[in-house]
Structures are given as structure tokens and as C-alpha cells.
């Protein structure tokens, strides 16, 4: 039996009468990059929240490297090696770039600050205040904070949001490299279909809080339900 890097099993999260997640299951193989797509309000970020322990109560189980972590806090999940980045840039603006990566490294009990800075092309900006660097650099810093300590699973919520096409392509390449070199399993929410199809081993499509489809990029492109509900003509 395959040991999954991360499993969300029958996850349901309700806000009043509205089910933001309705019995969703997702299983990530070690080292894979899983794309997670769907229209706005499909439940993508809610699924990320449920997996990393953020937000309200969730029905269902989260299993991380074979361990049930459903009852662990977000901090404990991070310390166990389940990291995430956020839809909006989520950094510490007043701190120096190196200072904040080192802060995260200390919590992760590792000393790979330089490695992470180098991998994300932030070495030259290390001694600048995060508030003073360009938006694209801030997005990479956000990613660096999630990558410190070499987490085994990384949940990325729209890392290419606000980036130029060129920056998005570079980011996609970087994610591929990180997944293979660092053996990180990635769950990637992204609206940029070029990025999603370029990097994902498999893709899960959510719609109205339910899994609409799951498969390889080719299978998803060819799925008429997905095309109707989400992709439309964007893949033509």
C-alpha cells in the first residue's frame, strides 16, 4: 500500500447552511505536484485551510505521512513539516529578508537559511527590509518562509498572483526544481492555467465544494464537465 504524503479524507466544512467543502477527499503521493483548480468559491482555499488547520472546525480526517494530524494546531502541523503560503503576500515587512527567513529556520530547527535564500534568488536582497523590495521578490520571500526547514508537504495558494508572465514561468520552473531536488510534495492552487498545466503531475478540480474531476493534465483538458464548469475556452 502506498504511504501518501498527505491525505484529506471526507473533509466537510460548513458556514451556516453553506457547505464550503462537502465530503472532499484528496491524496497526494510523495514528491508529486498536485494542481488544485476551480472557479471562485469552489472551496480551494478552504481545502488548504482544512489541511493546514486554519479556520473553523472541519469534519473528516487529515493524515500526514501516515499520522493522523486532524487534532493538531496549525503551528504543530507546521513543525511536523506541513507548510503553506497564502493568497496575499504574507511576510514580515519591517524585518530584513534574511532576518525573517532565519526566524522561520530557527523554529524549524534547521540552518538552511542561506540555502533557501539562494534557491529563491533572494541572496542579494538578504540585507534589505522586506517592505522595500519589489512585489515579485516579496512573493518569493513568502515562498521562502514556507520552504525553510524543508517541509515535506507545501500548500501554495496562488503563488503567481500578481506576477508578470515571465515571472510566472520562472516560478513554475522553480517549483518543479524544488519538488524534485528537495523532494517536496506540493498542493498548488493557481488561476494561471499555464503554470498549473506546466508543473502539475495531477490536477484536482473542485466545484461548489465537491471534487468534480481528478487526473493528469491531458485528462483534465479533455474532461467536458471541467471545460463546461471552469476551463471554458481558456485551454483552447
Amino acid at each position, binding site marked *: 500500500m502506498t504511504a501518501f504524503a498527505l491525505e484529506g479524507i471526507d473533509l466537510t466544512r460548513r458556514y451556516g447552511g453553506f457547505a464550503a467543502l462537502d465530503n472532499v477527499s484528496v491524496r497526494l503521493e510523495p514528491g508529486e505536484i498536485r494542481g488544485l483548480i476551480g472557479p471562485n468559491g469552489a472551496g480551494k482555499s478552504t481545502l488548504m485551510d482544512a489541511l493546514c488547520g486554519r479556520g473553523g472546525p472541519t469534519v473528516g480526517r487529515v493524515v500526514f505521512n501516515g499520522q493522523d494530524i486532524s487534532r493538531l494546531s496549525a503551528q504543530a502541523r*507546521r513543525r511536523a513539516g506541513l507548510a503553506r503560503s497564502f493568497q496575499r503576500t504574507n511576510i*514580515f515587512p519591517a524585518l530584513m529578508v534574511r532576518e525573517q527567513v532565519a*526566524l522561520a529556520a530557527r523554529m*524549524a530547527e534547521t540552518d538552511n*537559511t542561506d540555502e533557501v535564500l539562494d534557491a529563491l534568488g533572494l541572496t542579494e536582497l538578504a540585507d534589505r527590509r522586506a517592505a522595500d523590495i519589489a512585489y515579485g521578490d516579496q512573493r518569493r520571500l513568502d515562498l521562502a518562509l514556507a520552504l525553510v526547514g524543508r517541509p515535506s508537504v507545501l500548500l501554495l495558494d496562488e503563488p503567481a498572483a500578481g506576477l508578470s508572465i515571465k515571472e510566472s514561468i520562472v516560478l513554475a520552473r522553480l517549483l518543479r526544481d524544488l519538488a524534485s531536488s528537495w523532494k517536496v510534495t506540493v498542493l498548488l492552487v493557481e488561476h494561471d492555467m499555464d503554470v498549473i498545466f506546466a508543473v502539475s503531475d495531477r490536477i484536482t478540480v473542485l466545484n461548489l465544494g465537491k471534487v468534480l474531476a481528478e487526473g493528469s493534465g491531458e485528462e483534465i483538458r479533455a474532461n467536458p464537465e471541467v471545460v463546461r464548469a471552469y476551463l471554458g475556452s481558456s485551454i483552447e
Partner: protein
Amino acid sequence: MSGAVSPAKSAVASGAVASGPRAPKFVIAAAVLAAAGFAVPWMVSSQLALTLMTQSVIYAILATAIGFMIRQNGLTSFGHAAFFGMAVYLMALNGKFDAIPAELAILAAIALPAVFAFLAGLIIVRLPALSFSMLTLAVAQSLHELMLRWRELANGDDGMPVRLPSTLFGVDIEVFQAPSTMFVICWVALVAVIAVLTVVARSHFGVLTVAIRENEERARYVGYHTLVPRALVFALSAAIGGLAGVLFALYNAFVSPGVLHWSLSGEALIMAVIGGTHAIWGPALGAVIFFIVKDAVGDLTEHWPAIIGGTLIVVTVLLPHGVSGLLARFAARGEARKP
């Protein structure tokens, strides 16, 4: 942006989150500053002037406590007089009931506000900034009312003496009550407080609390617990407020409910804002400016608070980081011009 992942070039020691102050330079600067205080009584012959300067240094310590809270937690206390007054009343009541040795009472007067603030902080530092400010104000005013109304205990508005033994820590009590010696003690205490807070601010704990101030959610998602560090900053700030109260009690040997009043918290907050809270020493500078303006303008008009108010408006609008921020900007420009 590098596209490929390369191996680590070098390891960074896990303790290198924040480099500590450059030790020799820092220690020398602190020692020189502390020593400078010894020269003041030689240069200032007026006992009245020394008394005013001693009082201003005590309030500078209180302002530094408030500034540290703003700097590290991003929270503004409107009721730090509670910690100041708590310490003074503890010493006064200990003298009245002769409960514990005065030396122990001094330590308790610093520890009690810290413990109180830590426990309260576990609840109130989670609140929005305005709610936190209002709650600190409410707590301080409640204590003020308690000491004002409970005449049997604290003699109400008439106040009560702080009875002290003839020696403290083996030092004659006169030393703590003569302006020339007490100024030096308070000055050294202020320098020590600034030095300790600088070390704390540059430590891992200091960087962490600034990170939490900046983005608590992110701090949580890199794995840190955020509540206890914030409560600890509040406790440390309260302990320093308590230290200021102890010095006040030793010097004045008298207490009235005024030491718990919101106006004292407000004045110390104004000092912190004028001086700026970006630098640990900013609020102390603000206290100096406050007392200079008060003294200079107070001779001309009884409406000196209006001048202080005007100064506050000017600083808030033109110098968001206070006078210390302006000085730091000049210093940075000077550094940049160096070849």
C-alpha cells in the same frame, strides 16, 4: 531569480536570527552614558533643578516602558500608571503594615505588576489595539478609584507616607532621598533599562515579537506560538513601570492616588510619542523634551499643556517616528555620505 536549486553554500547558526548588539561598543556606550550621570550633580548646584531632573528621569523610565510595548507589540497602553502606582502603593502599604522587609517589598513591587500584566496579557493582548488601550485605561482608573475611595486602607485623596527603614540594601536611606545621589541612581537605572531592552529587542525573542507585531498570522504559520511572547512583552514593560514606581516611592516617600491617574499614563505616552518608539531610547528623549518644554513654557503661562499638545501635533504630523526617528535619519544620511 535563480531557476535551479543549489546546495547550501554555508550554514547559518541557529542562533543567528538576530545579531546581538556589537558587544564591546555597546557596553562602552552604556558605561559612558551611565558614568555621565555622575557628573550632573557636580555641574548642577540647584537642588530644585536636580529634583526636577530626578523626577523627569523617573518618568523617562515609565515612558521607556510604554515605548517598548508599542515597539514590540504594536499596542498602546493608556494605563501604564497602573503598574507605576501599583509599585508605589505596594511599598506604602508594606510600610504601613510592616509585612515584609523593605528590600523584599522593592522586588515584589517590580514583580507584582509583571505577573499581573502577564496574566492579564494572556487575555487582552489578543484584542484589537483600541480595545487593549481602553482596557488598560479602565484597569488603571479602577485602581485609582479603589485607592481614592478606600480611605481605611490608603487614606484616600490625602495620600499616605511610604515608611522606609534607615538603610536599604545596606545603603543609608538618605542616599535615596537626596537629589544629588538619587539623580545618579535613577540615571543609572534608566541607562540599564535602555541597555537591557536593547539586548532584548535584538535577541531572537525581540525579533520574534516584532515579527508577530507585523504579521501574527504568518508567525503562527511558520510555527510560533504568538500569545505568550506578546504577554511577556507586556509583563516586561509592566516590570519597568514598576521599577519607575519604586524609584518614585524611594525618592518621594509619599503616595497619593494621582500616581494611578490616567493623566500620568497620558503624559508618559506623550513623552513616548514625541521621542519616538522606533528607538528604545526614543521615549527617554521624549521625556527630556517634555520636561524642558514644561519648565520653559511653565514660567511664561499656566497653559503649558496647550504648548505640549501643539508639540505633540507637530511631531505626530511631521515626524511619525518621533524626534529619535529624525535623529536616526540624519545619522543614516551621515553614514551614506562617508566614502
